[in-house]
């Protein structure tokens, strides 16, 4: 894509300038450039303009005008998304919700917080802390990412195995359709009349409505949390241990895995004391009342021993627990230091296939000539392979992209999905053709039309066109790497 081509629309810009406050419309290349990509830096495009409204009325006006002129709108939070969901359109308006950054209410007795979409994830928990509560979904990017972005991606975090995803922790979303009409999904009660549209809007990657207000539930902070760090001599053993824990009826507060390449990558950075000789390390957390945690840690330890853990260490205090997590939470920055660039994919597979998947990835490392440390939400089977590459070398970039794509295809083949929490965006459009059949993709297009009949809100993301899938199918058959092409893909 030629990034320099930006389509101009002077009439629209003049109209937008009339409805937006001074300084809230950016059109100069140097001002719009910071918005040219999100966390997926492989794809960039400057927008025609960036609008930074501060009121709902202005959001409605921007949408209204863009629709009248037939100009696409791409909403954006903090731009930490990893799938290119917030990639601008050359001829479009990027609608930044960054200035919607107020916490409107924290209701202790009702255990809810109502916030504007530009509020950062962590800021909600900070505001709730004096009440002994917090907002449970904790993406590793929580210092920076916004709740509007979380809603759009249905983001998860290391604690969502026990506490749920964004979807399970959001009660109400207020927003605007592309027609500039206010609409509320969900509500302050536990359900709302009509179809439950909240799950359609959550995870819709900004394609169905622009979120302007979110009510989240807050949960009481557990009295205590302790974390077990367990080493394994083989990645397959670690995978089996995950299944054994769940099979024993335990739902850990967090259950994360790092392979040896990952622990070696992060240790110099985090000094977490990871066992660098282990093929894989599991972090397994228990939280609750002190009695509950003591009981659960004992049961977890038993199961992990039975599953051939070679070393087990239980955090003695909060500082040590945080240290155990420090490495895991800093895996991405560590990858960023170890190589010129890294590419993180997001497939999710049934837990029982973790070992198979990790072996396939090892094989791909050899074939593509790129290293790929693995950190992931093992309890959910959600993988985050970090393909390390050199973004200055076009061949390295191409191999990284092909590597990532193959991991996604393998996720589908193992009965999983191409994305557990980062979204499809631009990145995984091709693999959507493998995961879904054409009628189901057509139904997604129908959902899109029902919310946005003109197809102007963040168009071109998530759902591939029929044409694209046909191209992708041809390409793959020619490359001869489609296993069992005759089987239906789900």
């Amino acid at each position: 894509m030629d990034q320099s081509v930006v389509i101009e629309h002077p009439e629209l810009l003049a109209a937008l300038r009339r409805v937006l406050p001074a300084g809230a419309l950016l059109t100069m290349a140097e001002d719009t450039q910071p918005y040219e990509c999100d966390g997926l830096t492989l794809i960039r495009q400057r927008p025609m303009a960036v609008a930074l409204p501060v009121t709902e009325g202005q959001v409605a006006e921007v949408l209204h005008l863009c629709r009248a002129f037939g100009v696409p709108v791409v909403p954006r939070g903090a731009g930490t998304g990893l799938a290119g969901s917030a990639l601008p359109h050359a001829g479009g308006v990027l609608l930044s919700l960054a200035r919607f950054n107020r916490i409107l209410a924290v209701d202790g007795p009702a255990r809810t917080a109502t916030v504007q979409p530009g509020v950062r994830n962590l800021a909600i928990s900070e505001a709730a802390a004096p009440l002994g509560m917090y907002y449970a979904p904790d993406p590793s990017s929580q210092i920076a990412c916004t709740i509007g972005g979380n809603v759009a991606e249905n983001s998860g975090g290391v604690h969502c195995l026990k506490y749920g995803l964004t979807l399970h922790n959001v009660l109400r979303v207020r927003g605007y359709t592309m027609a500039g009409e206010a609409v509320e999904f969900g509500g302050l009660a536990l359900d709302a009349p009509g179809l439950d549209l909240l799950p359609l809007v959550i995870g819709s990657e900004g394609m169905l409505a622009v979120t302007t207000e979110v009510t989240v539930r807050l949960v009481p902070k557990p009295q205590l949390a302790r974390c077990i760090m367990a080493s394994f001599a083989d990645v397959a053993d670690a995978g089996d241990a995950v299944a054994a824990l769940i099979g024993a009826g335990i739902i850990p507060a967090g259950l994360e895995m790092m392979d040896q390449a990952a622990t070696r990558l992060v240790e110099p950075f985090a000094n977490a004391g990871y066992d660098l000789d282990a093929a894989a390390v599991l972090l397994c957390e228990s939280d609750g009342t002190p009695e509950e945690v003591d009981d659960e840690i004992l049961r977890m330890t038993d199961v992990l021993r039975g599953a051939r853990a070679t070393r087990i260490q239980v955090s003695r205090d909060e500082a040590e627990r945080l240290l155990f997590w420090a490495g895991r939470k800093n895996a991405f920055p560590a990858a960023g230091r170890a190589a010129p660039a890294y590419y993180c994919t997001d497939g999710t597979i049934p837990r029982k296939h973790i070992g198979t998947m990790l072996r396939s990835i090892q094989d791909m490392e050899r074939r593509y000539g790129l290293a790929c440390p693995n950190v992931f939400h093992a309890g959910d089977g959600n993988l985050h392979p970090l393909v390390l590459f050199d973004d200055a070398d076009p061949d390295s970039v191409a191999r990284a992209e092909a590597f990532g794509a193959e991991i996604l295809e393998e996720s589908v083949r193992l009965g999983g999905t191409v994305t557990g929490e980062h979204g499809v965006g631009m990145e995984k459009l091709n693999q959507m053709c493998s995961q879904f059949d054409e009628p189901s993709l057509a139904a997604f297009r129908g959902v899109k039309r029902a919310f946005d009949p003109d197809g102007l809100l963040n168009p071109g993301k998530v759902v591939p066109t029929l044409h694209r899938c046909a191209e992708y199918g041809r390409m793959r058959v020619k490359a001869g790497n489609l296993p069992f092409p005759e089987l239906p893909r789900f």
Partner: protein
Amino acid sequence: MDVFVAQCIDRVREAAARGSALRIRGGGTKDFYGNLPVGERLDTRPYAGIVSYDPSELVVTVRAGTPLAELESLLASQGQMLAFEPPHFGAGATVGGCVAAGLAGPRRASSGTTHGSVRDFLLGASLLDGRARVLRFGGTVMKNVAGYDVTRALAASMGFLGLILEVSLKVLPRPRAERTLRFEFDEFAALARLNAWAGEPLPLSASCWEAGVLHLRLAGAMPAVDAAARRLGGEAADAQAAEGFWRAMREQESAFFSGGAPLWRFALPSTAQPLGLEGGSCIEWGGAQRWQRTDLAADVLRTRAASLGGHATLFRGGARESGVFTPLSPALLAIHHRLKDEFDPARVFNPGRLVPGL
């Protein structure tokens, strides 16, 4: 293709061509619920059976016509359960009906691991829509954000988008220990207590207040249940009696539900003040679900519910033909209209059952 599915496809095509309607029905245990059913009956029960169950994956995939009781006993044999504790409302309840009605039982508002609505535990589904397309959404893994989450919109959809053929549900381990406590509180005190307790890290799994008595169920690891029981006080109920009590609540078999007046369900913020209507309420879900038997007019009740931040549904009895659910805002109604046009343009499936006229 499966014979049943092939037959259904033919029936959908025929109905669409003739402009007639199909009324999806499992065991008929929820015939009473929703707007009046119309159309020729489409019985889902021939399409039954567990497709796959892997306890260590916490997922079960079942066909919609499978008896709910059969699914629950299979899960129980592996120490697992449906975390939303669905009401059956009769012996013949099917999994498809359970999902389509989207009704959850006492565990709905529990703390911790479970956020207990049917929707929260739906992972994947296949659907035969009004265009006679067999569609597949979601999957069997815990986290999946590929495409719009149509799967979860099927919970409580009352057949609006089509015939649910198969669902994958996340299941949970049964709690290792349960205990029910009994307290005497008036309605204000009960609501205040329930909301205060829900803000503390306590293993609450159900609550019910009626006529001055609050029942509270704790569930979790034995030490956590013991510690919470010590902390909360109250009077411990006999385990067997407690089980019967919660089953009766779930199935609406207690005396409160046996009266003759129409039964209304209020979904409200848990902190909403008492409804203050004659006859008194029965309060569940920590204050978020309230039942009321009353002959008062629908608009009076709906206005009251709205003023408290929620909505009211005519659950059983009464003037069903005037619409049991709270009417939608124009913006939402427009979206429903267009969704129906996309999935069921000829209005084959369950017309009007969820949204009058659609």
